[in-house]
């Protein structure tokens, strides 16, 4: 065999090898991508019951849109207050990069780790330690961070549902993390113990968590 045909064969095998490498890479990307997708909240899962999911989300939506939730999930960059979700009168409060406000008006400059004993005084919630216990010596009161503002105010059910299930908007929140947030975050729990003069959401906390779980367990489908 002359040198030229031999080179042609080597060239041909090199292309085959490259094709195999590309195919394997594509399969890996697809498998890993799906594995990641299964960990994040997804809007539609063909294995779930779409009707049940939407019913459950609609129940939970009534809580998401209550002032106890909306006031810390505002459309703008300042927190809201009261049953009519108005800005803090007089104070020019800002979200800040981390959602904790901007000095010298950070949220925890006034809000403590517990409610104060009067409805004209700032309410409060404790920080969670790394071991999951509550630290009543350190307050935690904030909006979502600026890069994932998680706006509830003014959102329709479809808009809010899509936002909650979009990893780009929810900061990569997994279904488990979302359930954890609504079931055990002190700021969420505070909504059901908001202190004197403040209304609680229309569902009990258990009903709310059950709705969120059902919505996600049935695929996290969103209303049209």
């Amino acid at each position: 065999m002359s040198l030229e045909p031999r080179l042609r064969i080597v060239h041909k095998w090199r292309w085959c090898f490259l094709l195999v490498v590309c195919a394997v890479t594509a399969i890996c990307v697809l498998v890993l991508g799906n594995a990641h997708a299964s960990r994040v909240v997804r809007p539609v899962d063909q294995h779930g019951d779409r009707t049940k999911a939407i019913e459950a989300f609609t129940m939970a939506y009534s809580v998401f849109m209550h002032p106890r939730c909306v006031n810390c999930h505002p459309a703008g960059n300042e927190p809201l207050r009261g049953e009519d979700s108005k800005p803090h009168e007089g104070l020019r409060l800002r979200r800040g990069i981390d959602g904790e406000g901007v000095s010298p008006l950070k949220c925890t400059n006034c809000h403590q780790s517990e409610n104060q004993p009067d409805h004209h005084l700032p309410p409060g919630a404790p920080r969670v330690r790394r071991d999951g216990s509550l630290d009543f010596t350190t307050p935690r009161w904030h909006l979502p961070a600026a890069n994932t503002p998680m706006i509830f105010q003014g959102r329709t059910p479809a808009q809010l549902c899509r936002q909650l299930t979009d990893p780009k908007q929810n900061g990569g929140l997994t279904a488990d993390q979302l359930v954890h947030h609504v079931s055990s975050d002190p700021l969420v729990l505070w909504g059901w113990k908001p202190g004197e003069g403040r209304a609680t959401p229309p569902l009990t906390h258990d009903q709310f968590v059950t709705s969120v779980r059902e919505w996600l367990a049935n695929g996290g489908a969103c209303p049209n």
Partner: protein
Amino acid sequence: MKSVAFNLNGSPVTIDVEPEKPLLWVLRDDLGLTGTKYGCGMAICGCCTVHLEGDAIRSCVTPMSRIEGKHVRTIEGLSSDLSHPVQRAWMDLQVPQCGYCQPGQMMSAACLLVQNPNPTDNDITDAMSGNLCRCGTYQRVRKAIHHAAEIAANKGARA
């Protein structure tokens, strides 16, 4: 009662106190530092502003349980010789009228200037919106903060 240890204006302090007692009353009644004033008692007016770990907190609603092991600075701790840029600016421009709210104004201003050494008018309006003044000294407060920023910048340049 609980023994609460903290750092006050650079010195260690330990005091037996109810954990829920507001810092304001410990400062004024137990420790005799009356520069920090009682205004509304509801975290609204800003008269009682002091620094906790550098943040401008409302001492009237801050329980002592939150103070344990932390650094607190009051108006008395800005400087021992009135040399703090905020103190100098306030004196240069004669900011106070009745003066009651001014310790709180000055502590907020000092906190602002640490975070933002060269604030705009808008930055000042935002930052100082939590400090009320019944005498209406707001314009002088604004000028004084700009002046304090200049003093601090010149001091930094000399150092």
